[in-house]
């Protein structure tokens, strides 16, 4: 029996998803016995030319993590799509845009200005910015084109399945990869390795009447680890986020930040959380409501921390 061919690739990412796969540890050996990993630039010495040389649809399943932020990301994503029977958006960046998609609150010029000019520790007196082409003595050097808007994988190519998480939690990674090997697979477009219910379902904390009288940052309070964080004024994205991660952040007394993305029937994760949170403000007058609103310093960044790329509005007005 021929072994299944799988591939792992990364686009604009932090590398965490790759580490999540590496953290399978010895299970990787079991996996290697069942499949052939034919492309994995992060861990093994594969080059793009190896990918280009493959026949179309020769890879059974490709797991791509990272968001699409530049022309290289886009090119390789398209290549990977052509070479693979099934393409999986692995991790929050590929699925939702992830943290990179917060770049959609600005554009290339804004990011370059910030990174190459304005940050206090930058020393760049000649104001050199990255160029797509530059002539040097040895010839021409090229860099990928940096895009103004970060895209999710499925805004770039056709995607078959999604695995949420930043990164996907260890147990889920193993289960998902083995699901592709052993089957059966749900219909195309399904989200794997996560629950269809929100994090609140797994969270062990106690909820009472649930009205919010104040909003604080995590450092501004000593929270009770047994009680719901939202009721204590700490914004927890749990209600609007898929579970399946085992609520590890909550167990470490940190609020959920939404990395597993929206629930199946939610058309926009940020909008849903905004509605849920403000609905339970314990405020009746416009003045009291405004006070609570003022204590949420960055609604966009808070509610769309991982999902701006996939949100309804996708980016700020340029």
């Amino acid at each position, binding site marked *: 029996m021929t072994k299944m061919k799988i591939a792992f690739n990364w686009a604009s990412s932090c590398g965490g998803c790759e580490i999540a796969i590496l953290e399978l540890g010895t299970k990787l050996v079991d996996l290697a016995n069942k499949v052939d990993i034919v492309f994995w630039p992060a861990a093994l010495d594969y080059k793009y030319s190896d990918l280009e040389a493959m026949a179309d649809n020769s890879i059974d399943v490709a797991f791509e993590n990272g968001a699409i932020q530049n022309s290289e990301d886009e090119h390789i994503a398209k290549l990977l799509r052509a070479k693979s029977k099934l393409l999986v958006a692995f991790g929050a960046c590929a699925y939702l845009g992830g943290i990179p998609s917060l770049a959609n609150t600005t554009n290339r010029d804004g990011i370059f200005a910030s990174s190459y000019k304005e940050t206090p520790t930058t020393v760049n007196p000649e104001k050199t910015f990255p160029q797509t082409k530059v002539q040097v003595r040895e010839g021409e050097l090229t860099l990928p084109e940096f895009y103004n808007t970060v895209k999710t994988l499925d805004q770039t190519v056709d995607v078959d399945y999604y695995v949420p998480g930043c990164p996907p939690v260890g147990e889920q990674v193993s289960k998902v990869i083995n699901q592709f090997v052993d089957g059966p697979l749900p219909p195309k477009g399904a989200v794997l390795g996560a629950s269809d*219910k*929100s994090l*609140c*379902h797994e969270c062990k904390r106690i909820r009472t009447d*649930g009205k919010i009288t104040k909003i604080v940052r995590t450092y501004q309070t000593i929270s009770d680890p047994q009680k719901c964080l939202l009721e204590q004024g700490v914004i927890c994205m749990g*209600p609007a986020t898929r*579970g399946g991660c085992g609520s590890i952040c909550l167990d470490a007394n940190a609020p959920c930040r939404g990395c597993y993305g929206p*629930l199946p*029937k939610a058309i926009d994760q940020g909008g849903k959380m905004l509605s849920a949170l403000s*609905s339970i403000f314990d405020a009746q007058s416009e003045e009291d409501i405004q006070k609570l609103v003022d204590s949420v310093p960055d609604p966009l960044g808070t509610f769309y921390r991982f999902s701006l790329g996939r949100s309804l509005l996708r980016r700020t007005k340029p």
Partner: protein
Amino acid sequence: MKRVGVFVCHCGLNIAGNVNIKEVVDKAGKQQDVVFAIDHKYLCSEPGQALIKDSIRQHNLDAIVVAACSPAMHEPTFKTIAQLSGLNRYNCEIANIREQSSWVHDDVGEATAKAHITVRQSIRKVRLNEPLQPITVPVTRKVLVIGGGIAGIRAALDVANGGYQVYLVEKSGTIGGRMAQLSETFPTLDCSTCILGPLMVEVYRHPNIKLLRLSKVEDVKGYIGNFKVRVRQEPAYVDEAKCNACGECAKACPAQVPNEFDFGLTWRKAIYTPFAQAVPPAYVLDAKNCLGLLPQACGECKKACDKFGTSCMDLDAWPRIHDLEVGAIIASTGYELYDATKLTEYGYGIFPDVMTSLEFERMLSASGPTTGEIKRPSDGQTPREIVFIQCAGQREPETALPYCSKICCMYTARHAMMFRHKVPDGQAYVFYMDIRAGGKGYEEFVKRCQEEKGLLYLRGRVAKVYEENGKLIVKGVDTLSGKTVQINADLVVLAVGMIPSSESHELASKLKASLDANGFFSEAHPKLRPLESPTAGIFLAGAGQSPKDIPETVAQASGAASKVLGLLSSPTLEREPTVAQVVGELCSGCGICLSLCPYDALSLNAEKIAEVSEALCEGCGTCIASCPSGALTLRNLTDEQMVAMIEAIVE
């Protein structure tokens, strides 16, 4: 896949005059799932309705859109036609192309373009409508009336005479309310107790009325037709049935307290009867002011009752809990007076000779603190100069009550007249802003008062009342003459405003009945539904809903009773099924929706999944908007339908 029929109404020229009907029909006919589209001059008419019925049958339609006037006009009509033609009535949508299109846009092009969109929206919605059946709930054919004043009495009698069991809950030891405290009533100067008394007795004797005195509503669960009410009845320590009101207990009682019936102008004993004609005609032991029951410190009342009376006392009695099941609740909790000490300019509470209108009323009463004689509280002398101040602390949105209490002009006129009768050589002054005398015979009565010798009406306000040399100096203004006025009065009476009874706030939250900005029970609609709360099954009567006089109170009470009789006329009740629904597989039990429901219709079950009580849900949809999982949906106004309508608009 639905087969949708679209019917576009001309409404004579109301729509056809400013909307291109043919274009609307044509465009509608091209929409997805529309298999038939036609117009008609008057769809609500008999031939129009026949056209709809025939078309449904001929073209095998399973959903219709009627593009016509506002749904507020004929939605029920068209829904019924749909139902009679074999459709589920919830497969009928109305597109408002008259009030919100034809009548409001200048240009035919504009109005027509908008009509297209409105029709398209309705088509997209109806395609996704589910067929629904009304929710049937059983009706418990018993009624609770809260508050035993004239409103509660009238309502209880009317319902009881209609053949149903009534529980009349009253917080004090007797029914009768404010009317029992009145001496006479305007404009006829009837003796109040004389006309109230027989009604009170009728209540007590009525086989269908169970009177629970010293009782308060502790908890209300359930919904229209099916309320479960817990009532807590404090002990009277006297057996109502056996007591013959001989009064021996009171004679023996050593504890004296200010009599609240007379607003503290007289004393009563700790064991007492509220007033002579109290119903039930039995004494009450006021445990708070008794020298002590646990342990028993005195017991003289019981000794006297055992020796001279009917031996009907039990000093070891406990509160009783009554768990009542009723189908409707009438709230008739009445009013109190605004706290006159807040009106610092008038000196109430500082100068003993400044009284409120109800205190003066008690003084007028033959059974009151002075057996009907008018005396100054300070020295017991007969006042010769008396000042009545109308609108005291009312019609003043900045500093006191913003509203008018409706009855003060009338009772002040009566008070002034009574003063003149009892003190023929006295002089009465009435400071007024306006005279509101709209009831039957009211204007004539006030006219008489204004023409009475020794009674002077001054149009103006009083700036201050203070004491000097044993007299009350009243400084005011007479706007008709343009002069400031100073009266050295012996007695000042303030017509203070009516405020809702102090328990109404707590009761309203138990009933889940809304209160208005002034704390009175809200009515479902100020013009067309003044007898019921927006909360289904709760009805309103009397001053608890808004200040009013006795004829209006009685009318409202009878009206509320008739509504209740209508409700109870059938053993079952149908509720609109367009309510909230939980998709269990998507619900995580986060609980965010729970605190949002104004009707407490949401709860978490044993599996920590949200559940909607369909009978309690009124279908507002606020829980749906807050659900972060999309697990909550509103029947026939789902998020999918909302998105379809949004897309129909922006295409």
